[in-house]
């Protein structure tokens, strides 16, 4: 008869990590001890889970705060202002809050997406268009296209395909400035209504679903690139509706970035933040609508 199992071997066996199965099948004593240990462990686990947390020493929180502040102060590279930076701050030379650009002539915004319509000071057209977003996408898209045609063409809402992985803070920090200043790779599929209607997708950020060579038509484009849905003006408008603050209808996105969140294709919507020194970034999945924003990530970042 093989040796009895010691306490550690019994404990390992209980979590499937041991190899005393053969002995246990023939030794009644060890079998009983295993059962007793299993019951005792349940009692122990209950006692452990019921332990009250040790109280945090009141001075520890202030100690940590002071230590972090001391760590911050000598660093010259990030002179974060104590007060929110004014909109005219040199740091925000390329991107200023919408408020700082007012009064902006309404029609100079690039109304290439229906969503932009609603962003124009609560214009009746926009609200009407969006009130039933999803009910008649074709009609809305047409309306949006004609609105786009009527708009002055040159002030571009940055629409990029930066390749940023928004699940990776380092990637966001590195890449976001180029998204905001328009120097990131442009989203090749966003340019025209024709592109939205089934031209083969252009280069995708690494990690995105690859396009099928030669595929055409909306279904193929959608299968190849889940984000294609959010290039449709009506679908995009509906999504943005879920993200924009209803109390401030003048807010418009600073940038749209067709990128990814980990392995998932995702749209990053960069919005002005209530704090003018920051931007808010909603990272949404391809299924984003006004009824389900599909938010994967919400980030507040210092304005690059």
């Amino acid at each position: 008869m093989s040796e009895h199992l010691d306490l550690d071997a019994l404990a390992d066996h209980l979590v499937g990590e041991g190899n005393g199965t053969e002995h246990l099948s023939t030794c009644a004593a060890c079998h009983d001890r295993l059962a007793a240990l299993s019951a005792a462990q349940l009692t122990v686990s209950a006692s452990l889970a019921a332990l009250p947390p040790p109280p945090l020493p009141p001075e520890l929180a202030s100690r940590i705060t002071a230590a972090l502040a001391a760590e911050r102060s000598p660093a010259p590279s990030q002179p974060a202002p104590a007060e929110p930076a004014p909109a005219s701050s040199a740091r925000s030379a390329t991107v200023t809050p919408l408020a700082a650009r007012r009064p902006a002539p309404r029609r100079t915004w690039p109304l290439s997406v229906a969503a932009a319509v609603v962003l124009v000071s609560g214009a009746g057209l926009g609200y009407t268009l969006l009130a039933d977003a999803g009910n008649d996408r074709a009609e809305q898209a047409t309306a949006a296209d004609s609105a786009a045609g009527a708009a002055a063409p040159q002030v571009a809402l940055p629409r990029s395909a930066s390749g940023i992985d928004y699940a990776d803070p380092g990637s966001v920090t590195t890449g976001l400035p180029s998204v905001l200043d328009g120097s990131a790779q442009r989203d090749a599929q966003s340019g025209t209504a024709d592109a939205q209607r089934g031209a083969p997708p252009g280069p995708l950020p690494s990690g995105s679903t690859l396009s099928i060579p030669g595929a055409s038509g909306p279904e193929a484009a959608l299968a190849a690139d889940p984000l294609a849905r959010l290039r449709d003006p009506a679908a995009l408008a509906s999504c943005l509706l879920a993200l924009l603050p209803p109390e401030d209808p003048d807010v418009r996105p600073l940038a749209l970035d067709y990128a990814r969140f980990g392995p998932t294709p995702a749209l990053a919507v960069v919005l002005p933040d209530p704090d003018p020194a920051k931007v808010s970034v909603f990272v949404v999945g391809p299924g984003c609508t006004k009824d389900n924003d599909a938010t994967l990530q919400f980030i507040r970042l210092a304005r690059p």
Partner: protein
Amino acid sequence: MSEVPQGEGTPSPDARDRGLLAAHLAGDDQAFGALVGLHRDRLWAVAVRTLGDREEAADAVQDALLSAYRAAGSFRGEAKVTTWLHRIVVNACLDRVRRQQARPTVPLPQAGTGAEPAEPRDMVGERETALEVEAALAGLAHDQRIAILLVDIHGMSVEDAAAVLEVPTGTVKSRCSRGRARLAVSLGHLRNRPDAVPVPPAGTDVMRAADDQAGGQP
């Protein structure tokens, strides 16, 4: 227009943590403090139960958070932010344990070691006090104690605990189960069952005795 925008409350805790870390890296000088505020209670609990000394634990937490602050840029998103923070705190604590052990004049907390099993309990007094459990916990080897802290006390998944400790999941399971077994002995849960073979907390001397008793069986 009746849609309520989704704000900070919507994303998962880890998405929230990642957002704060990203904000910190982007120069938001409040973000790291906010992240710390969300996790410091648990990090403190791990530290004080690992080290058994409040001053040492406070120093370890502070050291760990400062190194996390400096190393935030090296967080690559392969684990949860909270896993990463726990790993830094656990490593800071284990560094201090090693230093303590290099100075044998500083005794480790050894209350309620397995060598001195608690009095057997009657069935009425089944539940021990939290103080007894804490004392028994302090008697465990550090490996087992930290695994139990993370999994049994903090409710962390075995996978996350394995990521914190940088060991395979099977190792975490084994450490937890062995630690629970030791606690069961030192808290007397294995002694109040008349049908249980007496189990030694460590070593095999009594095991041999049990072996002899069972020796007559076919």
